[in-house]
């Protein structure tokens, strides 16, 4: 009897010791074989809860299908990518891939992955997940929008697993911005999604109505709950692969709540009342409004300067059938005349537009690369001052004249009159159009502003090409010029002023084609920059677009938000969500 009791006690103690040892070997141990990344921000206080307002609900949490900005923003904090673009420096940095090598001919990239990293549900992350994810992005049947980015000259990249923690990517040609491609491509858990994919049910997976248990990601947060129409709450991912300089695991925040607040005015009100901590993009009027009480409350309001958005005027230079639209084709003789476009550009009161429409919080631009793009802006671009007299002189030299009533007449003595289409849903663009109309009146042009619902406008712009001039905006997705190739290539699908040309219509467009192709396939950053500077020069000389202003990025944070480093690239305030913390008042240090 006594012997059994002793043996039992031995095993009990042995088990206890083993359990203690095993407990110490969990992921919170400072030592261990995991390759954790180090963050650079200041050390913060853990445990805060952040509340942010979103303009609309995310439509889906499936990275393969998401196209809208809100979905991408939420997906961005739920998942991680291999190589990430640091929004502050605008350069790439290692993320899930801790290092990589590029072959001599520039077509093979071998990425070394971090070891011993786990998904938010505890499953291990290996090269299998990387290969699986890219298989999904490249699958034609899934129609992922990311697929086009991963195809160079219509040849998709080839992904090969070399070992459990290294993957090789083969490109058809050397590709200058190859590293930047990986940013935003979420790495998906093969252990959860492989079965739905093979069953053909991937498109129904990870919708907003899926339960939190169905998700697993490598981002700093994981889904906790979702109330349709009202809010979505995320909670901290305990397995996140980054630590702060002191060795504490990130993220600091215990939870992030997204409130769905559809109007900007309501968002401002919620921020003022303290219900939300951050404001992502304000318009100038609300910024001024908030500034009045900001210092008293210690709130941090920042004007980050111009972002990557540019507003411009484009004239219809498509080759159209003169039988079907004789009036339009007749007017195109003006639109195709470089002197006409130069005069229009000189007449635009860019400073007035920035002052009146954006309360001064916008920057006049003369090219599509804004001053916010630190790496690629050509510093030698001319910035001609507004001058109605100069514009008139140029028109005169082009054979234009004025009648006694002051109306501008073209060389064939026809009065110059045309319409500018503008999207009715954007108040500021309508105002820009009004100012442009008044400016052109001073040249004697009779311009009518036509507000049109956005999709009808896009239909006319891209499909029927039935328009005269359009005032619109575009936002560059990245500082790098390559994603915008389709704007400059003659065959590009967004070569807005002259769509559907298989061959360049003018010598300068031919040169643009050549330059853009060259910068895409060069790996040397200095050489690429030189090529792109030349592109900007050509565009400034030939004015296919008449650039107007770029609105500044305006953000706000309560004083309790720490590590607040907003940037001009999306997502403006949440890009470093893993470093943000909610602490004592005054944590948000404003520049």
């Amino acid at each position, binding site marked *: 009897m006594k012997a059994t009791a002793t043996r039992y006690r031995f095993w009990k103690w042995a088990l206890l010791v083993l359990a203690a040892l095993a407990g110490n070997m969990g992921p919170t141990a400072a030592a261990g074989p995991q390759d954790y990344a180090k963050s650079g921000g200041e050390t913060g206080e853990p445990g805060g809860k952040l509340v942010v307002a979103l303009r609309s609900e995310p439509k889906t949490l499936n990275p393969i299908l998401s196209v809208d900005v809100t979905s991408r923003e939420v997906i961005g904090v739920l998942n991680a990518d291999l190589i990430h673009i640091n929004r502050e420096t605008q350069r790439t940095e290692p993320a899930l891939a801790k290092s990589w090598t590029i072959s001599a001919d520039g077509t093979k990239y071998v990425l070394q992955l971090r070891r011993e990293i786990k998904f938010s549900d505890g499953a291990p992350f290996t090269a299998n997940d990387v290969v699986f994810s890219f298989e999904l992005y490249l699958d034609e049947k899934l129609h992922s929008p990311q697929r086009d980015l991963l195809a160079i000259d219509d040849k998709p990249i080839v992904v090969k697993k070399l070992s459990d923690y290294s993957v090789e990517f083969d490109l058809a040609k050397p590709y200058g911005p190859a590293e930047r491609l990986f940013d935003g491509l979420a790495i998906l858990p093969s252990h959860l999604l492989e079965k739905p994919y093979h069953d053909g049910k991937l498109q129904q997976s990870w919708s907003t109505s899926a339960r939190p248990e169905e998700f697993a990601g490598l981002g700093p947060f994981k889904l906790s709950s979702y109330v349709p129409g009202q809010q979505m709450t995320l909670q901290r991912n305990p397995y996140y692969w980054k630590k702060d300089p002191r060795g504490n695991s990130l993220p600091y925040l215990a939870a992030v709540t997204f409130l769905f607040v559809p109007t*900007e*005015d309501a968002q*401002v*009100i919620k921020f003022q009342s303290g219900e939300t901590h951050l404001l992502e993009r304000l318009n100038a*009027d*609300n910024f*001024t*409004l908030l500034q009045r009480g900001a210092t008293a409350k210690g709130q941090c309001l920042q004007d980050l300067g111009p972002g990557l958005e540019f507003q411009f005027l484009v004239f219809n230079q498509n080759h159209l059938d003169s039988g079907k639209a004789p009036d339009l084709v007749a007017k195109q003789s003006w639109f195709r005349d470089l002197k006409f476009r130069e005069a229009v550009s000189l007449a635009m*009161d860019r400073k*007035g537009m920035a*002052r*009146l*429409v954006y309360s001064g919080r916008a920057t006049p631009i003369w090219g599509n690369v804004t001053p916010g793009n630190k790496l690629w802006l050509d510093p030698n671009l001319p910035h001609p001052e507004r001058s109605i007299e100069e514009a008139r002189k140029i028109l005169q030299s082009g054979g234009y004249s004025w009648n006694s009533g002051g109306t501008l007449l073209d060389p064939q003595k026809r009065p110059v009159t045309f*319409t500018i*289409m503008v*999207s*009715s*849903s954007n*108040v500021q663009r*309508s*105002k820009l*159009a*009004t*100012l442009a*109309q*008044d400016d052109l009146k001073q040249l004697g042009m009779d311009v*009518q*502003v*036509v*507000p*049109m*619902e956005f999709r*009808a406008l896009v*239909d006319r712009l891209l499909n029927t090409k*039935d*328009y*005269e001039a359009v005032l619109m905006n575009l936002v560059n997705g990245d500082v790098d010029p390559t994603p915008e190739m389709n704007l400059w290539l003659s065959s590009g699908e967004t070569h807005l002023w002259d769509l559907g040309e298989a061959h360049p219509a003018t010598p300068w467009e031919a040169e643009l084609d050549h330059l853009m192709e060259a910068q895409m396939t060069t790996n040397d950053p200095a050489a690429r920059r030189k090529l792109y500077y030349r592109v900007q020069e050509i565009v400034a000389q030939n004015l296919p677009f008449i650039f107007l202003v770029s609105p500044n990025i305006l953000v706000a944070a309560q004083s309790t938000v720490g590590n607040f480093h907003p940037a001009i690239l999306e997502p403006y305030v949440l890009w470093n969500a893993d470093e943000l913390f909610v602490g004592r008042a005054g944590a948000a240090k404003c520049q």
Partner: protein
Amino acid sequence: MSMNSGHRQLLLLFSLVLLHVFMVVPGFFAPYDYSEQNRELPFSPPTRLHFIDSAGRFHLMPFIHPFRASEDGSAPYVEDQARAYPLHLLKDGAPYRVLGLWTARLHLFGVEQPGRIFLFGTDDFGRDELSRMLFGGRISLLAGILGAAMAIFAGAVLGVLSGFYGGWLDGLIMRTAELFLALPWLYLLFAVRAILPLHIKTTQTLLLLITVVGLVGWARPGRLVRGIVLSAKERNFALAAKAMGASNFHVLRWHILPGTYGVLLTTAALLVPQFILAEVTLSFLGLGVGEPVPSWGSLLAELQNYSVLTSYWWMYLPACSLIVLFLTYHWASTTLQDKVAEVRS
């Protein structure tokens, strides 16, 4: 304190006519053209009229000090005491067209250049709000009257037919009414706007859209009229008239229709403001008149902006004038209703 009803009706008539005269010749009453921008004076508050100058002298004709940007941040604008411009009546100014026929230059009041008089302040481009309100009223009023007229006319005709003849015609008309009420007419408007050629003047587009909304809007007046007609035609006087051999038309004209006048008048006085509001909604959605032509809808749309709502009180003035107009219509409608009731009894 109380006027007799004859005086009251004259006063009513006079105010209605006055309001509409403003709309017919806005150019005379407005000191400036509606599109004239003053880019250095956005959101300037209303100009103050002074009768006593800095030396303490009284002037019969008031004068104004122009605004300039202030140095400190206390207010965006201060009066420039160094310069003064007297008010002139019947002054020459920007040209405008009267009834689209001839061009005139005479304005009711104004000040010498480079002075500016903004009795109702300016908008975000420094355009005089008073001038824009007067010109804008023309379009909004036209839209309101046109839309209401279409709706009432179509509604009355169809409602009477439906109620009087009953049977399958009634069924058909009422089902069509429900169809019209259920349709997402917003899509229809987008579609109509989008297929129109770009060159139609936006005023014409707006009126076309209002006509569409008006025609679509016959359903409610129609249903109301139908209800009354249904009930009226079975009343004793109607049955008696028929028994005596009166034709359907006679019964309709003399016995049934009068019963609908009350409803139609109320509806008319209600619909004009509602169609003006419809124009406001269309402007909010971007289907209204294009810049720089103003309408009360586009003027009110500026209030959509929270900071305008809280900082610039003079931008509410178009709303006030709208209310004044609606009050007058309301007064007219109740007076007419009472008059009709009087006549019938």
